[in-house]
């Protein structure tokens, strides 16, 4: 994952509350390998008719090169399916602006370089009002957590850790492996305190004393 600091692109309004993960990507597409791309599945059943033809005035159909989505409360609620984020990212979306996000969706987003930018309900109202006549160019700055839309600048809320992660494009596995020793020590202590933390059916495993050996 590569990091980023600012992004300028076209913003579209998805004027709905509770855009859940089942809408973002219907389950039937999720057996597809990621290498085939998930962009075409994004909001599939909302933006395409049952014969697969696109509904022309659906926001992201009208502006296929949009990279910023402005929506309403509880965006990404529901499932832990990271495929919902893949669909957005593969479509070309870099930022979603909304008053609130599903907790798991938000952390999945950050793990894929997608910014979940939280702003107030009133700011969303105002932004959506500005987009009624069509998409507009918007600039998002991660370093000072601001969104510039026309002549207004609004601040968004984002956890500091997530801000750093997005800017640096950090990969957690690399970070964690630096703590190998602490993990091993903590594991040994944990297993001593609760030996059943290693399931008892794994008798061979325990008698092999792997439970006190670091990985």
């Amino acid at each position: 994952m590569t990091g980023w600091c600012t992004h300028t692109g076209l913003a579209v309004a998805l004027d709905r509350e509770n855009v859940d993960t089942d809408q973002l990507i219907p389950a039937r597409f999720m057996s597809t390998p990621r290498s085939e791309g998930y962009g075409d599945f994004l909001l599939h059943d909302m933006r395409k008719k049952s014969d697969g033809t696109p509904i022309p005035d659906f926001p992201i159909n009208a502006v296929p090169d949009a990279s910023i989505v402005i929506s309403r409360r509880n965006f990404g609620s529901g499932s832990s399916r990271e495929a919902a984020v893949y669909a957005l990212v593969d479509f070309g979306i870099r930022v979603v602006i909304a008053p609130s996000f599903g907790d798991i969706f938000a952390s999945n987003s950050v793990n894929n370089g997608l910014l979940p930018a939280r702003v107030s309900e009133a700011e969303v109202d105002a932004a959506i009002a500005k987009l009624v006549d069509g998409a507009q160019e918007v600039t998002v700055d991660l370093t000072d957590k601001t969104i510039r839309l026309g002549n207004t600048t609004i601040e968004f809320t984002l956890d500091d850790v997530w801000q750093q992660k997005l800017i640096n494009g950090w990969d957690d596995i690399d970070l964690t492996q630096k703590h190998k020793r602490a993990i091993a020590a903590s594991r040994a202590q944990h297993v001593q305190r609760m030996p059943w933390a290693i399931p008892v059916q794994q008798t061979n495993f325990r008698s092999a004393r792997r439970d006190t050996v670091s990985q």
Partner: protein
Amino acid sequence: MTSRRLLDKLWDAHEILRRDDGTSLLWVDRHLVHEGSHHAFAKIADRGVPVAEPGLTFGVADHYAPTRGGPATDAIARMIATLASNADKHGITCFGLDDPRQGIVHVIGPEQGLTLPGLLINCGDSHTSTHGAFGALAFGIGATEVAHVLATQTVWQKKPKAMRINVTGRLGPGVGAKDLALAWIAKLGADGARGHAIEYTGSAVRSLSMEGRMTLCNLSIEGGGRFGMIAPDEITFAYVKGRPFAPNDTDWDRAIDLWSSLPSDADAEFETSVSLDASEIAPIVTWGTTPEDALPVTATVPDPARMQGSAAERARNALDYMGLAPGRKLTDIAVDQVFIGSCTNARIEDLRSAAAVLAGRRAKVPGIVSPGSRQVKVQAEAEGLDRIFVDAGLEWVGSGCSMCVAMNGDHVEAGKRCASTTNRNFRGRQGRGARTHLMSPAMVAAAAVTGHLTDVRELLKEREVA
């Protein structure tokens, strides 16, 4: 010493370190994977890293598991085969289609004793909150996090705020954990518990069985809470004892001692507290397209004209999708079919409560009953519940996620209306254009009997009179 909550005790016991920015690195005791975890296995394969703790990782085929015959398509068969080969490659115990322990991941974890008080449990599924019913720290994670747990057996997580949902009094007859859950979600909204770990307390929660507690914790995520939990007690210990992966006799007393120290201290404070009176809760059904669109079955379809701003717009869209007119009595809504299943409501007690309503009656509409696991299926058959369902005209099928997520081919046709024991009435969740009404197993059984949404208490009353 300052007083601590269940959340604090569980958190502290698993925290390896905390970064300056407040994020904790937590040790994971049980990692449950399923067919959907293929992205994560692909990620670790890309890096060339092994699974750090195969002995703490368990796989199960559930999301794509066929409930009738073999896999519906090649793509589905491939998903199941990929899980089996990943499990095999990494030396992970996997409850595959031919294993008598197979079932829905959140049903089999507790059933096998993999889920225990005091553990940290992760799974790439948002309903992992179910396991919190045992006093465990259990939460759903995305594919990147699943890959991280596979590679390191740890997870980075910022500690959530603690929320208490205290339920006083007693639930009335015909009212269960599902109604209780939908009641608080309707009250606080689908994002009411966002950023929080919920601890359920109070007499109504204490008197729930483990099955009921699991239903309650399962639905935490539908109110936005990634974590739901209940302090362990005698009911918990009795459920756990003797399960295949539970502590054996040598460890049992020590385990009970430790588990008994987990409940929140009496004077512990919560960032958010909510109180509900169980005796005021009626059987609940959903009318819209999120679990917060829930009302007592005695109510009428809400009128968007009486709502404000975006809520009105959303309700209008939801009613349009659901094909419902404002002001209509909920009990006048006819259903086309029913579904009893899912990790929310397919445990033995759920099947018993549906069977109690269906016994000696015929269903007016078709439907399927999918037990939460093979073991639940065996037990239900031993109790003769399968006969009741079949005699009522419903189909008794194999276990898996089935129509909860419509991945295995089982689905509701567009425009059809289904009374369902599942957890999500999202647009298209049960199939493109499907209309889902969520409710308890007893309420689904009642809808099957009459062909429309029905207050199960009426049917139970008839029974008493007869």
